[in-house]
């Protein structure tokens, strides 16, 4: 009798969990960038989600930097092991183009904004691809150390301070790739902002940008990891540098470094999720459930408590509050804050998709000269 009950119980439990497993998988692999950014995702929505769904287990893979290459390889091997991948917009566009990322029906798959707006309205202009769910807006911005600049020099208020080695002597750090640097060079060579990509499209325009960069070539320390410029600036190796605004925030506010932000001509970019194509139904169902939760108005606003990146939903902006540990207001540190975004440079994704390879080889050749 007793044995029978136990057997029955096990059978029922078995059937129950089987049915559940068919609906939604319980394991999920999220891909992100590691570091402070991934920690903000973990705290803002992964931990709350796990609390609501105790059966689920989430594995992080810190491979976002090579996400396109790895997804392509997985696709060729016919074995997609990732469920949700955090990538920058240009990579998302490439993945979408190649059919490696799933198309998103925004209004259907994502939550409405808290203010009642549809998801599509809420994300607005940040929807740059059919496959891409933006989470945050970050920017590549500059920072400098006032104590390392000559005492009589005025505080730099323009990105062109990078090209003015007379007023501001010392090394400056720039990212080792043509993107952003070519635009800044032209901007500081007198090309109007809305003309830049037209000029850069021509041979002469590219030469003009390289010629401008040539004037400071010997003073540049090139970085390839965004953590390098804050480190170099803290060591006094450079007097100014470009990096992601979140890196500067954590150096300035969390580590009390004597840096000043130089928001002029900051370049906006997006970071968000793509769902790989070809996921089995149960895994897809789990991912959809998670994404709906993780990208709603409150969750995106929560993420801003841990890192100074602006939420991609318009409805999240009013909810952005104080830093979770430091208690400072996060609003003024966002790249999207009115005082910071007086002069913003809008990066042209489709243009770079075409010219990236060509300009990169020219850039490498220029570096080697």
């Amino acid at each position, binding site marked *: 009798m007793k044995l029978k009950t136990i057997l029955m119980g096990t059978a029922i439990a078995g059937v129950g969990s089987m049915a559940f497993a068919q609906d939604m998988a319980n394991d999920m692999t999220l891909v992100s960038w590691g570091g402070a950014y991934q920690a903000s995702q973990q705290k803002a929505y992964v931990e709350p989600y796990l609390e609501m769904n105790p059966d689920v287990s989430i594995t992080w893979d810190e491979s976002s930097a090579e996400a396109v290459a790895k997804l392509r390889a997985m696709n060729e091997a016919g074995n997609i092991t990732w469920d949700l991948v955090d990538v920058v917009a240009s990579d998302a566009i490439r993945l979408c183009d190649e059919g490696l990322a799933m198309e998103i029906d925004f209004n259907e798959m994502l939550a409405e904004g808290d203010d009642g707006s549809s998801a599509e309205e809420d994300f607005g202009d940040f929807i740059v691809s059919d496959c891409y769910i933006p989470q945050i807006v970050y920017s590549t911005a500059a920072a400098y150390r006032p104590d390392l600049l000559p005492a009589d020099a005025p505080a730099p208020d323009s990105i062109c301070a990078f090209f003015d080695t007379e007023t501001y002597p010392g*090394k400056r750090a720039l990212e*080792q790739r043509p993107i952003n640097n070519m635009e800044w060079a032209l901007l500081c060579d007198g090309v109007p902002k809305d003309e830049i990509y037209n000029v850069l499209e021509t041979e002469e325009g590219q030469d003009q940008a390289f010629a401008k960069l040539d004037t400071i070539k010997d003073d540049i320390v*090139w970085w390839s990891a965004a953590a390098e410029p804050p480190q170099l600036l803290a*060591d006094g190796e450079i007097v100014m540098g470009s990096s992601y605004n979140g890196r500067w925030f954590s150096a300035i506010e969390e580590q009390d470094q004597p840096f000043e932000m130089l928001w002029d001509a900051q370049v906006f970019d997006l970071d968000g999720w793509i769902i790989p194509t070809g996921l089995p139904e149960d895994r897809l169902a789990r991912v959809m459930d998670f994404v709906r939760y993780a990208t709603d108005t409150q969750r995106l606003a929560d993420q801003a408590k841990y890192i100074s990146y602006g939420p991609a939903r318009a409805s999240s902006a009013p909810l952005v509050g104080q830093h979770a540990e430091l208690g400072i207001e996060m609003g003024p540190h966002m790249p999207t804050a009115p005082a910071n975004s007086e002069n913003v440079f809008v990066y042209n994704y489709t243009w770079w*998709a075409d010219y990236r390879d060509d300009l990169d080889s020219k850039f490498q050749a220029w570096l080697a000269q």
Partner: protein
Amino acid sequence: MSDATQTGPMLAADGRPLKASLNRALRRQKIRALMLIAPLLIFILITFIAPIADMLFRSVENNIVSDTLPRTVEALDEWTYASGEMPGEPVFDAMFVDMFIAAEKKEHTRLGSRLNYQETGISSLFRQTGRDVGDMAEVYEDQFDALNEIWRDGAFWAQLMGDPDWFENAQGAEDDGPRFRINSEMEDRLPRTAEIYREFARYTQNAEGDNPVEERPWPLVHAMLYADLTEGAAIDAYQGFGAAELLAAKEAVPGFETQPYRDAFLEVDDDWGNVEMWGTIKAYSGEFTSGYFLNAVDRELTPQGVETLPSSQSVYLKLFWRTIWMSLTITFMTILLGYPVAYLLASLPMRKSSLLMILVLLPFWTSLLVRTSAWKVLLQQQGVINDILVWAGVLSDSGRLIMINNQLGTIIAMTHILLPFMILPLYSVMATIPPSYVRAAKSLGGTNWVTFWRVYFPQSVPGIGAGSILVFILAIGYYITPALVGGTDGIFISNRIAYHISSSLNWGLAAALGTILLAAVLVLYWAYDRIVGIDNVKLG
């Protein structure tokens, strides 16, 4: 007579020729030996050799063009770049069909980015055209719809174009149903329509897992039906299913609004009139290409032939040369620094030498990143060494040395990191040199130098050989350290390979660069074998 028996084959006890029976015994032994190593051999073949071979093969593989644009490639056969004229209408017709199918399968952008490596702008041209190509075909779809609504019915199309047996089984079947078979009569009467409908049906079944009976065919199928009908398809004698509708359509098509694809393409983008662009497609239409290898040595395959890239774009030869000479420098530095250490290790008493050994091995066990970062702290301009020199008054504060983010930084850091690979083989060889030789040389009147140079050093050469091969081959493929401390003029070719694998996704070029690097190592290894002799190398 007797001579003949003597020169005949020698026989074994069982009457077989001795040679054959010996061979048999040997063969059995060989097979047994092979069986013993088989698991390891198969493992290495599958997990190591095969992936490398596959990767190397990508350096010449180029079937993406002929797979994605098969009809265009064929149509371009008659066109030559030298004519300087835009290809004619047939090429655009073929391009329209290929582009439509590729866009449905989402293959056109991948091809676009592949061709963009050769001709900037093709990527966006293909992306843009892929978006608009659907509209071009809808002109015909709409007109067929207006003629008779049955032309939008998936089941009608399936019954018309499919084999009758197949249609019977497919009707009402679950999921994708039985594998599609084309109606052979339709293949004769409406060849182009049949070809595209089959493509549609197969794609619907294989990629989307749907039953063609329930799916409305692509607008392209309508466009092809229009083409077949206007070209005078033989359907007048056709009696089968849908005969009436086909005849009605045939009568109506002369009144249809037409869509010249050439004009439509040029309207999407002027670049379709660019001869250069067509030349690039033609130049890269083969199954295999030398294009990646040419790129890897700063050449380019253009429609006019092979051209040398201008110096503003050539990087790779310079990088190959730099990788080789810096690796040689690093190898030489490790010999210079490692030899005395290995000598001490081999000659000191046991207790002291094991302490020294630990000092050699400790950094060897430390993470590569930690060691590289430590060099950063030491060498940077505000770093420990510069600080000490300034404090000691050797340098002025403004004259701090630049020792990192350049070639010097790479050489210093890599020499340190690779030092154990020189010291350990050197030590293991030196430990086997009997000290009595040196004593004997000295007792025969040799000075310290002569004893070392004529007696000790020659015996330690195999260790130098082994260490040099190890260090050089490791150095030539190094990439983390140059990336971190190399700045712009201290990076290696492997950094560009990594870039093309993970960022630009130009895997063909990465494979070509990798193949050249591998070949260079093999050639150097061969040269080394000829000069020093690989038998003289001892690893322990």
